[in-house]
């Protein structure tokens, strides 16, 4: 019971609003999001629903709004129109239930910190102010490292890892956080084959554990095997849906963009 109480004391004293357990993981209604200072909205009239326990891919060329949608759900961007709910609550109000993996470049990898210490930061929303990670937190960090096959790199400085290993470390942190909703921005971008395999396995296991996973990806090959559903984004709008086939409209657009190959 003690742990349950701890969960509801996130940072900044913001108590998690009592969210109904049957609320969808992610629900957007006519959502509009604009970056501060930008003229054009980055997302326009997006209406989607991600049920709890689903694995959903966000597909689209660069600038389509995949990252924006993930950032909004993580509470990093203000909603300027429509509504966006995460487990029935305002984005950003459930820090311990939502993990967000930014693209690898958005972190200072030169910082003098070990991989293990990076991963234990996933426990911070459960700890809050003035509490140091306890043995249990370190144990969970180590277990997450083990699961991603980088336990042996735990004491390395984070900058000494390869790109794929860094991506695994970030995913390990999200696992240590024990979040219910994982928002992953291009976790498979420019990583080695071994990392792809490990990440795929972890995503599959997460679904078995009842977690919800939303992944921005360029990789159309794995859509059918790795995901239950896919949302195709273009110019800030959802233009197609369904993991089964690449939508013709989307295929044409992505060819114009020159970055994607549609194999389906």
């Amino acid at each position, binding site marked *: 019971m003690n742990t349950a109480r701890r969960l509801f004391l996130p940072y900044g004293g913001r108590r998690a609003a009592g969210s109904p357990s049957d609320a969808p993981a992610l629900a957007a209604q006519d959502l509009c999001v604009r970056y501060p200072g930008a003229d054009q909205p980055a997302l326009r009239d997006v209406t989607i629903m991600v049920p709890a326990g689903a694995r959903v891919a966000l597909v689209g060329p660069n600038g389509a709004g995949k990252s924006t949608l993930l950032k909004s759900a993580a509470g990093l961007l203000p909603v300027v129109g429509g509504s966006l709910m995460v487990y029935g609550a305002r984005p950003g109000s459930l820090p311990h239930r939502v993990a967000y993996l*930014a693209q690898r470049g958005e972190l*200072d990898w030169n*910082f003098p910190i070990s991989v293990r210490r990076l991963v234990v930061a996933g426990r911070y929303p459960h700890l809050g102010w003035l509490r140091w990670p306890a043995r249990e937190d370190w144990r969970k960090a180590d277990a997450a490292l083990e699961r991603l096959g980088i336990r042996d790199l735990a004491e390395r400085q984070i900058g000494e890892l390869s790109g794929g290993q860094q991506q695994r470390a970030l995913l390990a942190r999200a696992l240590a956080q024990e979040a219910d909703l994982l928002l992953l921005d291009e976790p498979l971008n420019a990583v080695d084959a071994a990392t792809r395999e490990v990440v795929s396995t972890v995503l599959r296991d997460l679904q078995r554990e009842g977690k919800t996973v939303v992944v921005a990806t360029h990789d159309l090959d794995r859509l059918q095997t790795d995901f239950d559903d896919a949302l195709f984004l273009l110019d800030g709008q959802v233009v197609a849906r369904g993991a089964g086939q690449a939508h013709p409209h989307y295929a044409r657009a992505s060819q114009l963009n020159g970055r994607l190959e549609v194999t389906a």
Partner: protein
Amino acid sequence: MNPFDWVLSPFQYNFMRTAALAGALVGATCALLGVYVVLRRMAFIGDALAHTVLPGLVIAYLNRWNMTGGALAAGIITALGIGWLSRRREIREDTAIGILFTGMFALGILLMSAVRSFRDFSHMLFGYIIGVTDDQLRLFAALALVIIVVLVLLHKELELTSFDPIHAQVIGLRPDALRYALLALMALAVVGAIQAVGVVLTSALLIVPAATASLLTKRLPAMMALATLIAVISSLTGLLVSYHLDVASGAAIVLICIAIFLLVWVIRTIHECRRTTQR
């Protein structure tokens, strides 16, 4: 003179003992904070904070107010002012720093020139560590204690916001609030450092020991310990050199810091060259 006498004889004087303690305290606190200053690329703002404290010092001096209070007020106004000027992003932060920094420093010089006793003010500009009183020493100790306690209590949050502000924000922390906390601590540290090495050289105490330590280790706690050690050694050595050679103590302390940095850097460079040629 034998080396023991060279080191120990100056400390028969009370003012030298006080100065040594003050130097060690001030150097240690600046170096500790300096690790964050270096890692978060805040070197420019550190320098600016030291300079903008000047008008606060001068106004307090002219009105016979508490000089430390004046310095603190000016430091905190600067920290908030920079945030406020650059908040709408029309003006970039480094530009805002540049404007406030030079503006406040010019104001300080203007006020100094209005009263013609430059001698008192030269201590503000270049430091006067052997003039530290027992009261000031107690104040420095209190400031050091506050800084260390806050750094320990907020360690995991300061660390996280330094290398991954996005994750910090997602889990409900406010990176900008922690940055202000760090700036406030820097204002506290700067107050002591000005007495030791003066307004102009204070940023050296923030930056150089931390930069040296960053060449030697890839662990944050070790980096903090090393930076502190380097700063304490530099302060004491600089003080001795200035005593024996009768030169400015602030400049001597800073030059010892720089000498240690250069030594480490040269050794590292040679080491790196060897390693690459061996491959």
